[in-house]
């Protein structure tokens, strides 16, 4: 069963194009410097429309998660993490932590993680995260 995938809108296309190009793109307000996610063409803090897209480091830490023991049919049959990562730039986003056992022992809160783009189709790559190397 094919994984449920996002349908980008004009306001979010830069983010998904970035994932395809191996770059985690956030937005930042050029007036108040606030970095934010999810994408929108204005600053949710001050309301300014003067915002820019920039490439984030792709680094952050594991903020919170669950391990789903009843996976959705398109997510396979094994328990898997559904996580929220806080990026070094500030914003948080939902993701899966991959590249490590899907257990409470392996998934420690505050552990450093880094983005790993996983190609799903020609149009969509998902920003997943794995334990940071080194």
């Amino acid at each position, binding site marked *: 069963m094919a*994984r*449920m*995938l*996002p*349908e*980008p*809108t004009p306001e*979010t296309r830069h983010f*998904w194009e970035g994932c395809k190009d191996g770059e985690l793109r956030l937005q930042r307000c050029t007036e108040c410097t606030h970095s934010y*996610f*999810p994408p929108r063409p204005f600053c949710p803090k001050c309301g300014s429309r003067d915002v820019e897209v920039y490439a984030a480091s792709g680094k952050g830490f594991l*903020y*919170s*998660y*669950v*391990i*789903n*023991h*009843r*996976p*959705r049919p*398109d*997510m396979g049959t094994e*328990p*898997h993490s*559904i*996580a*929220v990562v806080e990026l070094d730039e500030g914003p*948080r*986003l*939902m*993701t*899966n932590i991959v590249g490590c056992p899907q257990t*409470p022992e392996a998934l420690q*809160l*505050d552990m450093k993680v880094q983005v790993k783009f996983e190609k799903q189709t020609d149009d969509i790559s*998902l920003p997943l995260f794995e334990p940071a190397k080194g």
Partner: protein
Amino acid sequence: MKPKSVAVVGAAETTKMGKIPDVSVLGLHADAALNAMKDAGLKPSDIDGVATAGVSPVELAQYLGITPTYADGTSVGGCSFMLHVRHAAAAINAGLAKTILITHGESGRSRVGAGGFGRNASSLMGQFEMPYGVTSPPTMFTIPVLRYMKTYGVTEEDLAMVAVIQREWAALNPRSSFKDPITVDDVLNSPMIAWPFRMLMCCLVTDGGGALILTSADRAKDFPNKPVYVLGTGESVETPMVSQMEDFNSSKAFRVSGKKAFEEAGIKHADVDHLMIYDAFAHLPLYGLEDLGFVKPGEAKDFVRERNTAIGGKLPMNTNGGGLSYMHSGMYGMYALMESVRQMRGTAAAQVDGAKISVCQGVGGMFAAAGTVIFGNEA
């Protein structure tokens, strides 16, 4: 809103509760509405305002034969009915309608006439949460909890204790889905749903409904039941995506809504005799106790463990057994309101002796929205 200017004069749940495979969603709304009208001694022609979520107020009005001058279709999840009470109180005070019916009905378990779950892959949730395998509330509502547990040293046993104490309340209620006692070990040995949540930390899935009728306080005295006055109300919304909650240790919507309601009612926490906190999952009463200001951040686990919210405790909470043991059709807020009204009328199965003020806190979506209603039974 001026406290005590509006009162609940009709309140009833559906005739049956639990598994109701022979009634549709709309039928459950109607059953609850007819029971509430009977409770208040009213006919559909006496109702001039309608509010509901799940179905449209248009559908409800036509089905029941009501011609309203006020219609509220606010739909922000399980606390929609708290918002309906708030809006109805304002509408009655503003003269938009005199007698307002609020209904809930949901075929959560049997899914009769219930439609499917819509998924929009281009919504923000569809783009930024659905791709990671979230399914239903057990994989979304629970996501902030490991952070909360780490921040305040909350254990799995603490979460289990919430379920254990609510089962004790449920045992006193003949209409509860689950009445048999459970222990912390029972909860911790129940099947894993989404770590750290086990089955007995998650709400039921049942069929049912409920309805309320509100009118002005000066008219309320003429109804057959003891009026239950609205002392204060609050509402707020935060985010449709749980991953974007400002703080995983606390719900902003709870804090804003609760503060507003307490200010409006002009009461202190020590004045509260009875409390309902929407418990779709075991962590919600902990967040609610803290965010409403009954205890300081991080103290709810001890407050519950020391049995303050249990039978005989100083702040009886979720006395119907809650969403964990009483019933949970999907939008549980109506049943929390029902129990507050019963406690204020003095007719609850687990009646709190002499209770004069009840606080009823609802949540919508996954910490997406909140509604607070404070009731009293003294004019």
